[in-house]
């Protein structure tokens, strides 16, 4: 039993790392632009499918590098054409827009790549378990965790030490003042949105190796990511990271004790956090209002 629990904590951290990658992208966009991006799962799907299309030409590694950038460009265009018009309005507007976008992306994917799922193999070097005992730790899953760690690390460095990063963080706290100081808020928001979508695209490429690539694959991953943000605390990227890891471990542990509640437990966690500490574990006071 204790081995089972240890296995599931480790396993939960692996899954949690993936949720965190999704959630941090969502969180970036939410913090600076106040947009609850329901189309995030759609962008994940675009990333996955682009990688599938590019793999025959660039190989897995090439696709892994290029597909998220292409997804980010699509995200940038969408932000310029559609989303920016709704800044400053009630968040409900952008929520409805991105909700509709999610459907459009799903159907467009179905039109372009077909309704049936597509087979994706991971490189042979990564496709087997590292040991017989710890069979659930495969090369690919380790690679996923490492990728998430590197990308999230880079993002934190970018936000902490670069001029753009400082502006994004400042904008999160008080956008009006940042604008008054002469920062081009329009460009800042577009760039920030594109970075968020880049993370979604990357998550899509990584997910393609683990999950079936099909037009609705983003749906099941979106909700845990929202919950990661709420549990971790709106406004805090560290909190989001922590939230992602926590819900991964919680659902893994519940699967040992009471399997059919492994999905419900993340919602229970969210409810408890909202009741006891509405701002989330590391959230700033007042960010939820």
């Amino acid at each position, binding site marked *: 039993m204790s*081995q*089972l629990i240890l*296995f*599931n904590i480790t*396993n*939960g951290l*692996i*899954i949690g790392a993936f949720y965190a990658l999704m959630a941090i992208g969502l969180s970036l966009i939410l913090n600076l632009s106040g947009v609850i991006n329901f189309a995030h799962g759609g962008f994940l799907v675009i990333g996955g499918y682009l990688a599938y299309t590019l793999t025959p030409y660039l190989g897995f590694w090439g696709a892994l590098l290029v597909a998220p950038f292409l997804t980010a460009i699509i995200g940038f265009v969408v932000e310029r054409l559609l989303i920016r018009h709704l800044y400053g309005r009630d968040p409900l507007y952008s929520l409805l827009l991105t909700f509709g976008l999610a459907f459009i992306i*799903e*159907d467009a994917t*179905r039109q372009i790549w*077909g*309704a*049936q*799922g*597509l*087979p*994706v*193999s*991971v490189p042979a070097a990564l*496709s*087997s*378990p590292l040991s017989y005992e710890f*069979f*659930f730790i*495969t090369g*690919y*899953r380790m690679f996923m965790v490492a990728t998430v760690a590197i990308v999230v690390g880079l993002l934190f460095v970018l936000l902490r030490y670069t001029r753009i990063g400082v502006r994004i963080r400042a904008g999160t706290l008080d956008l009006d003042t940042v604008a008054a100081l002469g920062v081009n808020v329009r460009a800042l928001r577009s760039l920030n949105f594109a970075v968020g979508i880049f993370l979604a695209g990357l998550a899509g490429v990584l*997910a393609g190796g*683990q*999950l*079936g*690539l*099909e*037009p*609705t*694959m983003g*749906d*099941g*991953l979106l909700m845990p990511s929202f919950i990661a943000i709420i549990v971790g605390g709106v406004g805090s990227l560290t909190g989001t990271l922590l939230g992602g890891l926590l819900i991964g471990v919680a*659902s*893994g542990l519940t*699967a*040992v004790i009471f*399997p*059919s509640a*492994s*999905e419900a437990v993340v919602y229970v966690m969210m409810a408890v956090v909202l009741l006891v500490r509405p701002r989330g574990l590391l959230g700033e006071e007042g960010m939820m209002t």
Partner: protein
Amino acid sequence: MSKDLNGRSIQRRTILKAGLAIGTMQVVSPFVVRALGDEPVKIGLDNPLTGTYAAVGKNELIGCQLAVDQLNAKSGILGRKIELLIEDSTSGDAGTAVQKARKLIERDNVDFLVGNVNSALAQAMAQVSNEKGVLHIVPGGHTDGITGTNCKWNVFRVCNTTRMEANAVSSLLFKTYGKKWHFITPDYAFGHTLYQGCEADLKQLGGTVTGNELTPLGTTDFSAYLIKARAANPDVLIVLVQGNDMVNCLKQIAQFGIDKQIHVAGTQQELEPVEAMPPEARVGVWMFEWYWKQAAGTPGLDQFVAEIRKRNDGKVPTARTWFGYVTIHAYALACEKAKSIEAKAVARTLADMELPPEVKLQPNKVYFRGGDHQLMLSAFIGELLQKGDGDPENLFKVSDIVAGDSIAPSVAETGCKMDMPA
């Protein structure tokens, strides 16, 4: 060709109005008269075109369309053209499915309702069709109740029941793989009845269940369940999840190397998810409800495969395509035999009707059982192939084709009490 009547009925109504208002326009009136005289037989398809079941829903649609075109190229049904009206039921929203069923019946006046892939949606639609007295065939929803405890005089089913699926493979798995089974089951109506069937069979054979992991529909990560399953040390890991969940589960089983330590198998398997898996995930013994590669000389099979390939970018028909095809042809045959499209007359004829070779496209007798309106279709049992044998889409090696009535529980066991109105 099929048309969405939504657009068309408005068009005709506009023409009618114009005709009445102007009155003198001789060009219009002959058209109106002809349209009323040649009122087509209307078939309403209320099936998923979006969401998780979009791929299988689309294949059922292609099968329906082929049958409609074939019939229309001859003399339709009783000399009347067939019109196929298509609605998207969504993959999981019973409210939408019911609303679309009502729209097809009340507004479009369809003579015959078809749907649904999703068991829950199929049952909800059956309530509506029964209330309205419209003949209804469920092409692809498997939960037992549809032709069991919830059976209805107007509702027929083409695909297997979950109990038939369990019975088809249980004894083979027991004999070849061992007696300790661990299950990964989808946590909804379909999964529950399928698990109960397998468990009952296993107990009868003298085996034991080491555990049953109930997984929510749409589960993306199965690792926690797989860790538990392996710790229980069973002889066989039985995967009952379907569709994309099946793709995810088998993909992860293959990556974890579990298929090399425990036998992996299941009941129902379909070509759609198998094609969406990478080769290494295509493992285990399964049953297909229909398979395109059969012994040479199966009447009508080659032609059917060729026709579907022509319509679907070269892709072969799946069990779903066949469900759609059989549904329309069975209805047409029953109408011709009853010399009527009146629901009760057609239902009475369809009960106990045997399908001819060019429709059933398989060996064994295939017929609707009068007692519960369940089609007795064969089960194709065999093993998945990692690489296509002779054709990239030939991914299943059929070892046995078992007659449907040999695996179906008796009508009394299904719990169906058919209430045929006079």
